[in-house]
């Protein structure tokens, strides 16, 4: 007993609580905390489904193009000219001079090079420009996933820095930063993104390849406020906590304590919000691409592939070529849904209160 007290003296608060816990745990067996999270995560079937969906999309988007390139040796912008005849039949009825009704048929045949139907060579056919749709789906996924991960990373980084500054310094720093957060949170997202994208796409000095980087910057700009709020809230909460007060009275520097506790305390929340955010970024990106303001042609994007079906540009593709736009939509849904499932699963796993 004496020995143990001696040992305890060298340990700080959290270690002491660990010590007590071990005493309790010695006479039975429990699940380790990390495994508990993993267990709760995998207990939910939806999390597993989400994980499978995301793994599928990743393999499809990142490994798929490599296979295509290695096997057939073409990329997203390879144009295929596949000749086929397209019959156009129109008919009209009229009353002949003999009083009988006649039907007039006009059959014209045109040679079409693009819009090939699905075949063994092109599983999903080719689109209006003669690109292979399956390949473009892969490249579209690549760009969507890359954008979403970079944007979320930047958002989280900016959010942690600004939220951390606000929470840590408090007073006027907090006031200024939080008002900026309020203003950004109040901006109408889509219209502002439209203005920004329109601006970039019309500046001639910017090469089209670079537009994608600006797009990422804009998406980041619209999304960092959530993270900043989470981080600031956590710091404020930690400051209020009693063990913080205790630490303060013992003269331990507050900043050390905050950062020691902040990271493990905030990390679960940030992971969850980032996972759910990934889907959101993909939706924004595809919307902009749909409006022709996102990933620039001829690079592939899921959104612009669906835009082919826009009925304002004619109903032909919407009605007759579902192979051109349905797969892209399905992929968007799979990806966003996958991220939501994983995010939800993680939240339930991290938050033991929701345990049944």
């Amino acid at each position, binding site marked *: 007993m004496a020995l143990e007290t001696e040992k305890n003296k060298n340990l700080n608060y959290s270690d002491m609580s*660990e010590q007590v816990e*071990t*005493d*309790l*745990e*010695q*006479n*039975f*067996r*429990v*699940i*380790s*905390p*990390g*495994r508990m*999270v*993993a*267990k709760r995560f995998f*207990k939910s079937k939806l999390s597993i489904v989400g994980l499978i969906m995301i793994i599928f999309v990743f393999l499809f988007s990142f490994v798929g193009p490599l296979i295509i390139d290695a096997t057939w040796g073409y990329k997203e912008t390879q144009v295929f000219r596949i000749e086929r005849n397209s019959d156009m039949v129109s008919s009209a009825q009229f009353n002949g001079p003999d009083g009988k009704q006649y039907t007039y048929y006009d059959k014209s045949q045109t040679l079409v090079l693009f819009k090939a139907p699905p075949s063994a060579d092109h599983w999903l056919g080719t689109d209006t420009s003669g690109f292979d749709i399956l390949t473009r789906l892969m490249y579209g996924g690549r760009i969507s996933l890359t954008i979403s991960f970079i944007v979320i990373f930047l958002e989280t980084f900016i959010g942690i820095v600004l939220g951390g500054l606000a929470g840590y310094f408090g007073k006027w720093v907090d006031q200024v930063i939080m008002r900026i957060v309020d203003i950004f949170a109040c901006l109408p997202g889509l219209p502002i993104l439209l203005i920004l994208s329109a601006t970039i796409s019309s500046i001639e000095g910017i090469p089209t390849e670079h537009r994608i980087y600006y797009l990422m910057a804009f998406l980041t700009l619209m999304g960092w406020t959530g993270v900043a709020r989470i981080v600031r809230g956590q710091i404020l909460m930690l400051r209020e906590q009693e063990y913080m007060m205790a630490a303060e009275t013992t003269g331990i520097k507050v900043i050390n304590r905050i950062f020691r506790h902040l*990271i*493990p305390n905030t*990390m*679960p929340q940030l*992971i969850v919000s980032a996972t759910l955010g990934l889907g959101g970024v993909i939706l924004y990106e595809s919307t902009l691409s749909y409006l022709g303001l996102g990933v620039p042609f001829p690079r592939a994007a899921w959104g612009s592939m669906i835009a082919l079906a826009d009925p304002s540009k004619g109903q032909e593709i919407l009605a007759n070529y579902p192979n051109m736009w349905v797969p892209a939509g399905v992929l968007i849904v799979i990806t966003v849904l996958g991220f939501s499932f994983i995010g939800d699963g993680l939240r339930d796993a991290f938050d033991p209160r929701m345990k*049944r």
Partner: protein
Amino acid sequence: MGLFDIFKRKKIEGVDDTMYLTLREERRISKENNRIIREFERAKNRKNVSEEEYLTQMRDPSNVVEFDNLHTYFFTDVGTVKSVNGVSFDIPQGKIVGVVGESGCGKSVTSLSLMQLVQGPTGQIVEGSIRYQASDGKCYDITKMPRDRMLKIRGKEIAMIFQEPMTSLNPVFKIGQQMDEVILLHEEGATPESARARSIEMLNLVGIAGVEKVYSSYPHELSGGMRQRVMIAMALVCNPRLIIADEPTTALDVTIQAQILELLRDVKNKINGSIMFITHDLGVIAEMADYVVVMYAGRIIEKGTVREIFHDPKHPYTVGLMKSKPGRHMTEDRLYSIRGQVPNPINMPNHCYFYNRCDKAMEICSKDYPCMMEFSPTHQAACFLYGQNSLEENLAKEEGR
């Protein structure tokens, strides 16, 4: 650091990793649990249960409630928690029975079992019976009663007062609404006016000043003591035969505590009901109870009249409890405390649960669980100090008979 900490197994010096369950064990446990839970839930959800199935006979007609070998288990992810593990005791008509024990010894779960309020689906009554003498003269086994039938007993014949007065009242309804609701539900022919009159009468009874004002205020406008009075008044509106008071004073100031206890005793006499009083405070028990039941790790280790328990405690744990109570006759400088801790409810040892903390432990204590020894018709304790009969032998003998 950070992210991976969550997934990293914490390495604590001196503790080997075998304290963690393996993945396979985990899976086995949850599979087993799901199977058991499904069975119990199915049994509970049966419809049109005939009354014969849950009608029974009281062993002693002067009792209101008889717990008989009650087992309530929680099927959790880390194993089965035997919260209540073979509890038998009686609550006589018009008496106060105190149930004492450390936190987590199963006293609250016992009372929730009586109300059929054990948090499902993980918590289930797996064995035993709770016989209840209803006001209509019939005797029911509550463990077998269907849910809809139980609704007629809850709140009307058995009422409950909870530990946390601050959170036990619905914050969005006025006090009056919450009290009237019980009357309108249980009393035939009650009108809103009569309910109101009754509620106000009850609020008066529990000694609330400015009854009209309290009647139309929201819970957050009252202090903790006031809210507990309201809870008591609410429990009383239907003249229950039994009030379960689950640590009703723990969350309150000491001065308020005394008032609430006084009130409960008064009230009991006025409605001529019984009280099952749950607490870990021996002082309260000494003041309030007629009979005492001492629980330890899901089992009863000693029961008797308040006199027997306080003046002639038999079980070393009870003796320890008495010693650790600060009092006027303190001769030593330090407060006595029982060393060690309660064994974890999962994987309970098959010997006396108090063995590793007991001053008087003998060899046999580490081998068997003792059966109840009788010292007087009311006084019993489970300890090998007073006889070598183990519980298993006893059970075997009873079965053989």
